[in-house]
């Protein structure tokens, strides 16, 4: 941009600091004039360093003597771990006092007269500039980089290709199981026809009860639930993936209050099953207001109307909560009637 220089002439008289400026008179500190004050400052600094050493000793004592489960009451802080407080305080003070001592030393006893140094332009001198250019030209000439076209082109090609293996090796970050693909995995869950629904106790182990009967859920109630075989799946797969997709909530309302559902007869006597995973970015949802039938996500406050097909009524979520068709089996326990009819959780490119 050679034209830019012409656009704005530099006015040397307009440079900051062009006005003659007197130096401010320097007022000596007490420690500069009074030897007593200077000795006092010396003692202050030394005491801080000494106290620091004392705190290190106290730290070691606290580390060895205080039981790790001991608690102590400290005003304002309440009941706190004794070891944590003692170690934190002694360690912090030991370090802090070194710092305050050094700063006191600098402020009271080291010179406080400012010094002036000249700056130099960052750019090299024309001579240095010329030298660099000449060296570069000589190197270029000697290597023959400009002359040997074929060497130059093949070298560029080789350098361009050699990172490819490094990138390709990242492919196995996910060792895709045979016959599976992300879209398929994101679109299916552990639910299937006749699979019993059990309450989610929040534990990742232990035995579940046999199931939930419709009468276990009062009108206005909400129950978090999972497929009955979730534990077997977890043990077989050694992960929580199935749980993350199959988590549902069951809510019960007066059948007359249900304005619409995602499928004809997907409820059972006013009990509706919805995915628990938010369609926005995937937080589990269980904040339910039974008077309005609204379900609120605690992460980003998307609000869904469970009496109206789980539609979004507020917030950043774009899609309604997927509904799971349910019924009861011959023993009278709630069961799923199929898998979800649409992918649960956040949207993705191929979802459509």
């Amino acid at each position, binding site marked *: 941009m050679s034209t830019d220089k012409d656009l704005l002439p530099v006015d040397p008289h307009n440079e900051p600091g062009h006005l003659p400026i007197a130096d401010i008179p320097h007022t000596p500190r007490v420690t500069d004039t009074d030897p007593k004050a200077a000795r006092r400052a010396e003692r202050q600094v030394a005491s801080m360093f000494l106290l620091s050493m004392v705190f290190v000793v106290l730290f070691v004592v606290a580390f060895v003597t205080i039981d790790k489960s001991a608690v102590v009451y400290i005003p304002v802080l309440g009941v706190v771990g004794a070891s944590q407080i003692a170690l934190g305080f002694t360690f912090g003070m030991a370090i802090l006092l070194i710092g305050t001592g050094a*700063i006191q030393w600098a402020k009271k006893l080291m010179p406080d007269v400012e010094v002036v140094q000249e700056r130099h332009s960052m750019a090299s001198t024309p001579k240095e500039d010329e030298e660099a250019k000449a060296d570069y030209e000589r190197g270029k000439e000697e290597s023959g980089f400009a002359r040997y076209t074929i060497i130059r082109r093949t070298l560029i090609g080789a350098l361009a290709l050699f990172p490819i293996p490094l990138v390709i090796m990242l492919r196995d970050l996910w060792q895709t199981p045979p016959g599976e693909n992300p879209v398929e995995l994101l679109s299916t869950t552990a639910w299937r026809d006749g699979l019993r629904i059990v309450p989610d106790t929040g534990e990742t182990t232990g035995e579940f009860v046999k199931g939930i009967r419709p009468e276990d859920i009062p009108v206005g109630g909400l129950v978090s639930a999972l497929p009955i075989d979730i534990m077997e799946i977890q043990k077989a797969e050694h992960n929580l993936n199935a749980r*993350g997709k199959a988590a549902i909530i069951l809510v019960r309302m007066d059948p007359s209050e249900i304005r619409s559902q995602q499928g004809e007869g997907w409820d059972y006597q006013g009990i509706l099953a919805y995915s628990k995973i938010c369609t926005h970015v995937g937080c589990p949802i269980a904040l339910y207001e039974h008077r309005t039938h609204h379900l609120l996500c605690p992460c980003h406050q998307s609000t869904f109307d469970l009496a109206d097909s789980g539609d979004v009524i507020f917030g950043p979520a774009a899609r309604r909560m997927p509904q799971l068709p349910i019924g009861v089996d011959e023993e009278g326990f709630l069961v799923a009637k199929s898998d979800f009819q649409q992918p649960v959780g956040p949207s993705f490119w191929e979802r459509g």
Partner: protein
Amino acid sequence: MSTTSPLEKPAPVEKAGGAVATYLDQRLGSNKALGRNLGKVFPDHWSFMLGEIVLYSFIVILLTGVYLTLFFKPSMVEVVYDGSYVPLKGVMMSEAYASSLDISFDVRGGLLIRQMHHWAALIFVAAMVVHAFRVFFTGAYRKPRELNWILGVVLLTLALAAGFTGYSLPDDLLSGTGLQIIRGIIQAIPVVGTWLAFFIFGGEYPGTDIISRLYSAHILLVPGLILAIVTVHLMMVWVQKHTQYPGPGRTNTNVVGYPLMPVYMAKAGGFFFVVFGVIALISGLVTINPIWIFGPYTPDQVSAGTQPDWYIGWLDGALRLMPNWETVVAGYTISWNVLIPSVIIPGILFTLLALYPFIEAWVTGDKREHNLLERPRNAPVRTGIGVMAIVFYGILWIGGGNDIVAVAFDLSINSISWALRILLIVAPPIAFIITKRICLGLQRKDRDKLLHGYESGRVLRLPHGEFIEVHEPINVKEMAVITSKTDHAVLPAPQKTDTDGVRNPRYLVHSLRHRLSTFFYGDNVPKPSAAEIEHGQHHAAEQAAIEAPLHEYEDRDVIYNAHGGVLHHPGMPEINAEQIAEETRS
């Protein structure tokens, strides 16, 4: 107060140190560098300590982080907890979470170090942001320091990455929820998002790989990059010499301050221990991230009122405030509701931030080197843009806590969200305008001070009955600060054709730059000429001189005549006792 004179023999330690220096010098030539740099001058200002806080808290993070790696197990294998925290005894959890609990309850001092790591991380990012404000509002990023500004922006991004990867490691319920949100965001990226999510997590969510992958990023990749870039960042500060605030004797071509040895070694070295010590004290006394309360992560649990660390809050707020737009084109989904707040907005903001020095230099046509900092009032548009960005950020940040605001003030979350959505568009421009007006007002005040002196607030009645407000000349320090202002010439308006009638091919570009530079500096209040300033100060000095006898009187500290009756004039005894004594003598 050293007791050794130069003639005395050096202490044994000094002797050994000298020997080491000679040994190294013969092999590395290091004494040349020492000689050049031990006396290097650094200007003094409290705001220059912000960058130091960043560096020192980073060192604390590195030290405590190494300690934590000795005990933390980055594994998602499910184990049964058998430590000393009773409420979770016998609960199945990942080894990562179990080892985090062990650090908190069974390693003596472990909780202290874990909390120091977390507090230092929060302070690290906070100090970095405030340091960036200082650099921005004083124009310290101008030539020749644009490259260091870019490194700073890269460091800020890396700091956020370091913070987030670390936040996710303990595998408690809160950190897992954060990861789930990240997964949702990655999946929203068009075309590649779905596969990318599967690659990063090693399959479906949550899988069993993510913690160990984040771990290698958190303890090796990201801190390694930060360390390398911080080193270059500091080397550039060293080579270019630190900028300085305007003041007496400070010009664009000098640097006024204290030498590295001994003042800055003691001050900066001491300050490192202060930062370190304060972090240790805070961490000893104040709990941060009590992971034992949240419980182990499972993908079907969440707690209400969850909050990310403060520096991620604005992104969470953007996610919350975004309207729920999503489009499906030819069978493919574009989730604008996630993409815009989490990818597009941060992307644009960080790009603009990094390019700002170049944009400003292009607009103003300013290609000079700047070593003297510019006062924020003297660049009203820059200051306005900065305040605008802070307001924008602040609104998103409040948005990130809209549920907490709703509970605390008993408001509807829907109305808060709507109010914030509107404010996000309306408030930043208003903040810009207000800031710009304030800056221009301050410029006018500065000009008045130069032309008329400082308003003393004292009204004086002159012998002929005129009332004047006494103005005093401003002191040298203030004079130096105010006159440091540069009048930036606005780029001239281009002509469509030159004198020969040839069309200017770059007319549109030049015309745009003319308008932008007028917008940037056109409203500035011009600095008076040196003669005008001298005249103004002279006038103020004259006024002050009229009043001087009264001051003399005040200065003598003899306001005893509260009962009245005695009028004082020069040469007259000052208190009644003296007056009476004099009268009796005569």
